[in-house]
Every structure is written in C-alpha cells, then in structure tokens.
C-alpha cells in the first residue's frame, strides 16, 4: 500500500510532465516555460519547488533532535521571500536574463563572472540535492524495507525522466500540483494525529519532561553507527537475541541493529545529542552544536535562510516564469502566504515525536519521525493509511525540489559553462546531473538532511545575495568587485563548512561560527564587494544597466513603440 502510494505520486508526476512535451519549441521554452504563467500558479510552483524533504521531514526531525528552537528554520525559510520581494524579484525579472549567471553577465558584462556564477550554482545545487536523494532512500528504507540505494536510484530515475521529457513548462504544472499535494498530505495527517493521540499525550506534548527512562519496551533501530554510554546495568535484547545485562560503560551500536530496552530502563547517553523534552530542549532558541551560544546560532541560521532564499538558483529561475516584474513581485508575496500555512505544522510532528518516539534521537533516525508517527499512534489499517499518505508526500517533496535543482544544474553546465545550448544538450546534461547526484548521495547516508540544506542556504547567502542586491541597487558595483566578493563568500561559506566535515569541531563559540558561518561570511562578502568596487571604476553604461531594472515594463514600452 505504501509502495503503491509512492508509485502513484511518481506516475502522476510523469503524466503531468508528459503533457508539457508538445509545448517545447526552443531552449528558452525549456528553461522558463515561455513566461506565460499567472502569479498565483507561479507562487504555488515556487512553494512546491521550495518545500523539500528538509521541510517535509527535516524540520520536524530537527525539532526532535535539537529542540523547539529548530522551528526557526520554518520562519527563516518563509521570511526569505520578503527579502526577495523587497530587493530582488521585480528588477531581476526585468533583466530578461534566464539565470543568475545570465544576470551577472547582463548587468556587469563579464564572461568570467558568468562562469564563476555557474560554478556557484553547481556547488549550491549539489549541497541541496544530495540530502534530497538521501531522504528519498531513507523513507523507502523505513516504510518498505527496501535497501537505501533502491530509493535513491528510483528517485533519480523519476526526476530525470520527467525533466528530460517536459522541461520546466511541465515542471511548473508538476510543482503547482505537488504543492497542493504536499500541503494536504502534511496537514491532514497532522490533524488526525492530534485528534487521535488522546488528551494525555496532547498535554504531555505541551509540557514535555526529559527523556531519561523508557516508558515502554522500546525497540531502537539504529540507522547509523552510534556510540552509547549506558549509565546503569540494563537488560538489552540486541537484534532479536535473548536479553543480556549490559554493565555501565561505552558501547557501539552498529547501523542496522535493533536494541530493545525494557520499560523503566535508563536511557543511554549519546555524545553531542540532546535528550528530547528537557529544559534546554524546550527553549525556543537553537543550539545544534551545543556551543553555549544559542542566540548567536539562531541569528546565524536566520541570516543564512533569509538571505539565502534569494540566491537559490532553482528559485531564481522560477521568477522568470512570471509575465513581468510586477508578476514576479506578486509571486513572491503570495509565496510568503502559502509557505506560512505549511510551516505552522512541522512543530506539531516535532512536539508529538518528542513524547511518542523520543528513542529516535538515540538511533540517529530523527529525520524519520514524520513517517514513523502514524504507526506508533495506531497499529491498525488507519495508521498504515496515514503512513502511506505521509510517505507519498515526502516522496513528492524530493521529486519537486530535485526537478528544479537538476534543471538549474544542467542549465549552468550547458548554458553558461559551454557555449551554444541546444534542447538536446540540455536533456542530456540533465540526465548526467542526475547520475552524478545519485552517485554522490549513495555514500551520504550518515549526513543530516537539515544541516546540508542549511549549508546550501549559507553558500547562496554569501555569494549570490550580495551579487544580486548590490547589482540591482548600486550602480558602482564593478565586475572585479563582484568576482572577488563572490570568491571570498564562497570560501568563507562552502570552504569552512567543507573543512568542518573533515576536521574535528572545535568547542564553544568557534563551533557556532564555523558550523554556521553565515553570520560573518555574508557581511564579509558584501564588504569585499563594496570595497573592491570602490577601488575600481564601473563602465560608462553601468548606471543605465542598473537603472533600467527599475523601470516598469508598461511605461518603458510606451516610450519605445
């Protein structure tokens, strides 16, 4: 049944994709769907594209893992569209450029900047795509028992076939459809869960107590290798074997094993993880690295998500599907409202998960809390039905986001890095990009969905955000300033995050500043761009190139024709 629901989502996606095939005439059609899409439909498509696995599964999972403060993710993801509305949407649409690299060349006339922007597109898209495919594999592993790689390969195949058949015209319908689907599949199970769990659980969810003892015999299925510290002699049954008493000390639980703890047993400790329900967990500030600087971590996350949204390559492309600058601005405003509805609900799953499935934090499986809750609440057919609905929604989320990201990647390769794009080449590149991402996602099972997506936002905020904001509002920006600023921003965000994967994380303030660099990397990139630009001279046409982005289309065409 669960598999059937997922297959249905893939089939409908393919069908809607096939509908758009007849409409493809040229590369520009493939990329931006001929710009004939109303603001509301486009806003639904933007939201559909934007609500990825990180939103559908990740935010609730992070609430369970890091506490109520993880709800700031939703706020930042939504608020990004206000920054977009105020600073970028309309002028960016008026450039007539198809992508950020196009914008870079149109505004600053530098082919080198275009290529650099294309490289940044590839970095952001990879950081964003890998967790989507990881989540696809994870959900299939949890609900159907298939191996991780099957889910990853199935997702990759579905997404790349849809794109290669229909391009973005198809993707606009697909995304708008997927937004409605995801909204329903997220909200209805949430309402059912809240009404079904009973008054006691509801009360417990709002006044959580720290998870220190198992309140029932709980099987803990380890998704990753986890090091546990057992604090008192505990009888544990490992993978169905007879219960043996483990003495206090450190133990290694290997991925794939199931440890069953008896009711009343003390919960083992996990390094660096926060037991759900405690005082620190209940604080509405985010401190994922346990650095002791929750306010700073929260603000850094908000800086990355709010300013990163405008720099996400797959979202920027979608604003060009609006008919004109005004349409793009309206699209951004409607998107804020649509996302606001969605993000009211991850907290419901997170708070219920902390009461009903706190053991997920031990197992490294917090990303699965959304799809695991229905079966925990109702072991009958109704629970299975809602598991199926949520799995279908989660799969819709991977498909939707991956469509746009693969398009942005293939666009960057075949449009910007290589000259002379053709429809045939775009389709082939899409396929190639999908194969590449699947190959990277296969060994990435241990990475956190939410953390990777946030680093994609941090990179976007440190590179494209200053380029777009200064390019649109400041005539003195020079190509050299933009290049140096973007390189500095890229190294400060992607470089630091990449290094922190390999090096041991330092404690305290440094952990926050390196794990979540947006708070300093974004201002640094802005400052570099401004200072280097001030040392040079913009070309004579720079003022006109900037100002024309602010003339609305109707006024200008009356002058011209």
């Amino acid at each position, binding site marked *: 049944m669960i598999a059937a629901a997922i297959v249905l989502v893939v089939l409908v996606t393919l069908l809607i994709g096939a509908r758009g095939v007849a409409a493809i005439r*040229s*590369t*520009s059609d493939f990329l931006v769907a001929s710009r004939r899409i109303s603001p509301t439909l486009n806003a639904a498509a933007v939201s559909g594209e934007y609500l990825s696995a990180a939103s559908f599964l990740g935010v609730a999972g992070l609430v369970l893992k890091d506490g*109520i*403060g993880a*709800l*700031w993710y939703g*706020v*930042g993801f939504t*608020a990004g*569209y*206000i*920054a977009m*509305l*105020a*600073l970028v949407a*309309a002028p960016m649409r008026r450039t*007539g450029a*198809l992508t950020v690299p*196009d914008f870079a*060349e*149109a505004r600053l*006339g*530098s*082919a080198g900047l*275009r290529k650099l922007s294309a490289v940044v597109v590839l970095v952001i898209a990879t950081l964003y795509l890998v967790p989507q495919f990881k989540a696809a594999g994870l959900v299939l592993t949890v609900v159907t028992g298939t191996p991780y790689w099957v889910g990853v390969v199935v997702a990759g195949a579905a997404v790349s076939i849809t794109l290669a058949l229909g391009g973005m015209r198809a993707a606009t319908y697909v995304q708008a459809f997927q937004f409605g689907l995801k909204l329903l599949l997220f909200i209805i199970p949430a309402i059912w869960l809240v009404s079904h769990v009973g008054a006691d659980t509801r*009360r417990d969810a*709002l*006044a959580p107590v720290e998870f220190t003892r198992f309140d029932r015999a709980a099987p803990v299925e380890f998704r990753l290798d986890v090091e546990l510290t057992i604090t008192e002699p505990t009888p544990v049954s490992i993978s169905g074997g007879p219960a043996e008493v483990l003495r206090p000390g450190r133990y290694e639980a290997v991925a794939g094993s199931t440890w069953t703890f008896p009711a009343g047993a003390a919960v083992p400790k996990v390094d660096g993880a926060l037991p759900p329900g405690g005082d620190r967990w*209940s*604080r*509405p*500030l985010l401190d994922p690295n346990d650095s002791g600087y*929750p*306010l700073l971590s*929260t*603000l850094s996350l*908000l800086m990355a998500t709010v300013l990163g949204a405008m720099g996400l390559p797959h979202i920027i492309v979608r604003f060009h599907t609006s008919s004109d600058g*005004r349409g793009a*601005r*309206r699209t951004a*405003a409607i998107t*804020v*409202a649509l996302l*606001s509805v969605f993000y*009211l609900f991850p907290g419901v799953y997170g708070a219920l998960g902390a009461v009903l499935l706190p053991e997920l934090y031990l197992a490294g499986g917090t990303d699965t809390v959304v799809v695991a809750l229905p079966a925990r609440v109702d072991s009958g057919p109704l629970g299975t039905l809602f598991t199926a609905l949520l799995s279908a929604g989660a799969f819709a989320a991977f498909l939707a986001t991956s469509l746009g990201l693969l398009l942005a990647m293939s666009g960057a390769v075949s*449009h910007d890095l290589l000259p002379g794009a053709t429809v045939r080449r775009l389709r082939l590149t899409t396929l190639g990009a999908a194969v590449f991402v699947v190959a990277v996602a296969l060994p990435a099972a241990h990475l956190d969905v939410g953390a990777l997506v946030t680093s994609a936002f941090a990179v976007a905020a440190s590179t494209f955000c200053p380029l777009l904001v200064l390019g649109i*509002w400041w005539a003195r920006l020079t190509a050299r300033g933009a290049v140096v600023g973007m390189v500095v921003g890229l190294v400060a965000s992607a470089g630091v995050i990449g290094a922190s994967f390999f090096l041991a994380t330092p404690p305290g303030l440094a952990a926050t500043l390196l794990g979540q660099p947006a708070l300093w990397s974004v201002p640094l990139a802005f400052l570099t761009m401004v200072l280097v630009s001030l040392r040079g001279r913009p070309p004579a*046409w*720079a003022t*006109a*190139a900037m*100002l*024309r982005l*602010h*003339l*609305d289309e109707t*006024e*200008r065409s009356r*002058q011209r024709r």
Partner: protein
Amino acid sequence: MTRQRRATVTSPQTRLAMARRRTGVRAELPHLAPADLERARRIHRAQLRRAVVAVALLALLIIGLPVVLAAFPGLDEVRVAGVPVSWLAVAVLPYPALVLLAGWQLRRAERVERHRELP
C-alpha cells in the same frame, strides 16, 4: 536578418546578444533615453527607500524575537491555552506578521509604479 548572421564578434555583450537572439528577446546594450533615465532615477530612489524600510522591519521582527526570547526565559513558563508563550512566539506568531509585511510591501512597491507617486 543580415545583422543577426554576424556571429563572429566575441565581446561579452555580443555573446549575450547572441544568447538573446536565440531566445527571441531583442539584443541591446544597456542604455536609456534621457527622459527614461530621469524617471528611472526617481523610481530607483523611491523603491530603494521602501525596500530598505521593509527589510529593516523584517530584521526587527526576526532579530527582535530571538533576542526577546533569550532575554526573558520566563516566557517559557507563561502559558496561553496550555501552550508556552515562547513556543507560540516561534511556531505561530511570526507567520501572520510575515504575511502582513509582504502584503504591505507589495502594495507600496506597486503604488510607486501605478501612480508615479514620486518624491
């Protein structure tokens, strides 16, 4: 037609123009007629002022809320209908505020264009 076939020029602007030609958008170097230039300058100033105000309000909201929550941990204990106020402040409160801010900024930005309401 003849102009469209001259494809060997290699400056970035020309290559951009080539890309535009394929997409059916007219190629042009960035320039504005003097009347357009003056109007664009005024619109730019008016829109910039509105955008800065909107972004400042946004910053006030999303920086202010965490600061308030950090400064007053007592809000965790205050409850409305059983829910801690500090949870509502992050889970619910920001969204209506964001929607209102978006609608307000959209109206102001469109008014600049529609009525030429300029300084």
